[in-house]
């Protein structure tokens, strides 16, 4: 159980700054997901929390205690590695009990904890096997067993599911969610997979280029992205972004269409408009007309890739199965209450709504 704080944390390799001014408060028992494209520094940040990577400057605290220079073994944090990192010369039981062995806990206590963990993770029949005789999913479970066995203050996960196949990944994701509910421990999870981030996290930290872009709950990030990067990174399929001109009562699209935004108040100085594919409706007569380029029928949804004259490509996701063929002309209506506006610096504009003003 732990509260973790990062204050102005910086990581530099020589003159290259890989993380800048990271400020993050993680509540006790919170599930935090660090997400971002590869090279954004998310794994480095996790390794700094683990103590495997020195912190260049700033403060890192666990329960108010400064931990910058504390060795990994004394931080009482467990970590699950992407590669699992099981000890190949030890059987499953010894792998799981290794931390207690090092701590010189009494062996009968160790045995019973190992047995308990093996039951929790469905590994009871495998405890005497060596890692090489296990499948990928089983190895992943052993790695988790090794982490939960000693009841650490916090858990770190470094892309734990990226080596598993798709169906196993879904299964293990559920297992991790269950584990968090059961243990109620602080967990920090690194992934580049936004589905994992959206399904597991209490709060998501979006990183890009060494900076925190936004911290918020999954719905926060989806509904109120702080900038263009977060808007396009979170949500699948990706948000459409088109250039616009701000206007007193709406925005003017590149083809001259005026999109009225009656719920907003004041002058809108937006340069770009973001619309999620699920927030554009296919209608008889709408604001725009597009020509279907590619149509994907997914059963539950239909994805339309359209060309709109004067605007360029747009992607639309419509619920259910709609009878559109490539080459068809389709009327489109933008759900004006669900649009996102971005200023010249790429940050989202928070225009006051009429309700708020009233």
């Amino acid at each position, binding site marked *: 159980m732990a509260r973790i704080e990062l204050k102005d944390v910086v990581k530099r390799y020589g003159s290259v700054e890989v993380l800048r001014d990271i400020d993050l408060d993680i509540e006790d028992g919170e599930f935090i997901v660090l997400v971002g494209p590869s090279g954004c520094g998310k794994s480095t940040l996790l390794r700094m929390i683990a103590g495997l990577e020195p912190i260049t400057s700033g403060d890192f605290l666990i329960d108010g205690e400064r931990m910058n220079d504390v*060795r990994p073994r004394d931080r009482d944090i*467990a970590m699950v*590695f992407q590669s699992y990192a099981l000890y*190949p010369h030890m059987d499953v039981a010894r792998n799981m009990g290794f931390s207690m062995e090092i701590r010189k806990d009494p062996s009968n206590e160790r045995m019973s904890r190992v047995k308990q963990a093996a039951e929790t993770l469905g590994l009871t029949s495998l405890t005497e096997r060596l890692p090489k005789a296990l499948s990928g999913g089983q190895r992943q479970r052993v790695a988790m067993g090794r982490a939960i066995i000693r009841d650490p203050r916090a858990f770190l996960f470094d892309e734990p599911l990226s080596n598993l196949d798709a169906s196993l990944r879904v299964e293990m994701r559920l297992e991790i969610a269950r584990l968090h509910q059961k243990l109620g421990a602080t967990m920090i999870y690194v992934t580049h997979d936004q589905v994992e981030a959206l399904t597991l996290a209490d709060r998501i930290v979006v990183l890009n280029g060494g900076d925190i872009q936004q911290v918020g709950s999954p719905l926060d990030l989806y509904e109120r992205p702080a900038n263009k990067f977060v808007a396009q990174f979170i949500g699948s399929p990706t948000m459409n972004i088109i250039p616009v001109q701000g206007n007193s009562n709406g925005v003017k699209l590149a083809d001259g269409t005026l999109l009225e935004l009656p719920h907003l108040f004041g002058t809108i100085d937006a340069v770009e408009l973001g619309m999620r594919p699920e927030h554009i409706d296919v209608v008889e007569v709408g604001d725009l007309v597009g020509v279907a380029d590619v149509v994907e029928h997914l059963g539950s949804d239909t994805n339309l890739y359209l060309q709109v004259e004067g605007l360029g490509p747009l992607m639309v996701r419509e619920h259910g199965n709609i009878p559109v063929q490539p080459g068809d002309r389709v009327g489109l209506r933008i759900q004006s209450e669900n649009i996102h506006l971005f200023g010249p610096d790429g940050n989202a504009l928070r225009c006051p709504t009429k309700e708020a003003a009233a």
Partner: protein
Amino acid sequence: MATAQSRPLLTIGKYAALLGYLSFALFPLYWLLKIAITPDQLIFSEGTQLWPSSLTLDNFRTVLFQTDFLAYFGNSLYVSLGTAAATTLIAAGAGYAFSRFDFGGKRIIIAAMLITQMFPLLMIIAPIYKIVASLGMLNSLTSLIVVYTAFNIPFATFLMQSFFDGIPKDLEEAAMMDGCSRFQALRKVIFPLTLPGLGATLGFVFTAAWSELLFALMLISKNEAMTFPVGLLTFVSKFSVDWGQMMAAGVLALIPSCLFFIFIQRYLVQGLTSGAVKG
């Protein structure tokens, strides 16, 4: 059809090639043994026959009980084991450092070690002799251990480094997260996985020291400090060569090398690290 017919031919060809290679490689060993068990009077009269008409163990008896062979043998064992142990210990430490840490001068040290491997040993025999002589260590087995260790360390270090490189860094980090200090992680996790590497290095250095002649010949002149390869030369007298005894001594000298490799071969088996990380 064509492929079905060529397959047995291919198999036969493969085994024939293997057999050819094996007989080529093992023939000198066979000849060594054959001459060792041929009675002296038959060596020249039946010289080229594949199998002598009568056998004897006299040569072995003479070598073991009437020459200083056992003393040479003991000296060689002492020098080779000492060299193998010292070299492997130092090379393991250096290899681990090269594999895991970044430190100032690392590239320079590696370059210097490579350079030492590039020129012939003959060039430095005289200076080594002078150094050892001025230290008063001529005719001592310790001087041989020191010199052999110095010459074997660069190669052994590169060998050990490549073994350490083959062990994922994640394993040590996982051990450290599990509560180990770096040294504990090394001892409990990395060391057991490096056994094949240690075995290979020990074996390599042992054999190199066991068969070394040049330095042993230069630095040792007293009979009681001679190693086996130098001692073997005593079978060559001014007017004749005692072939039978020399070969018998050679056969006996093969024994420790063979025993050593039988002992370490289980550590040389690959695949000890499989299952550690996703493979």
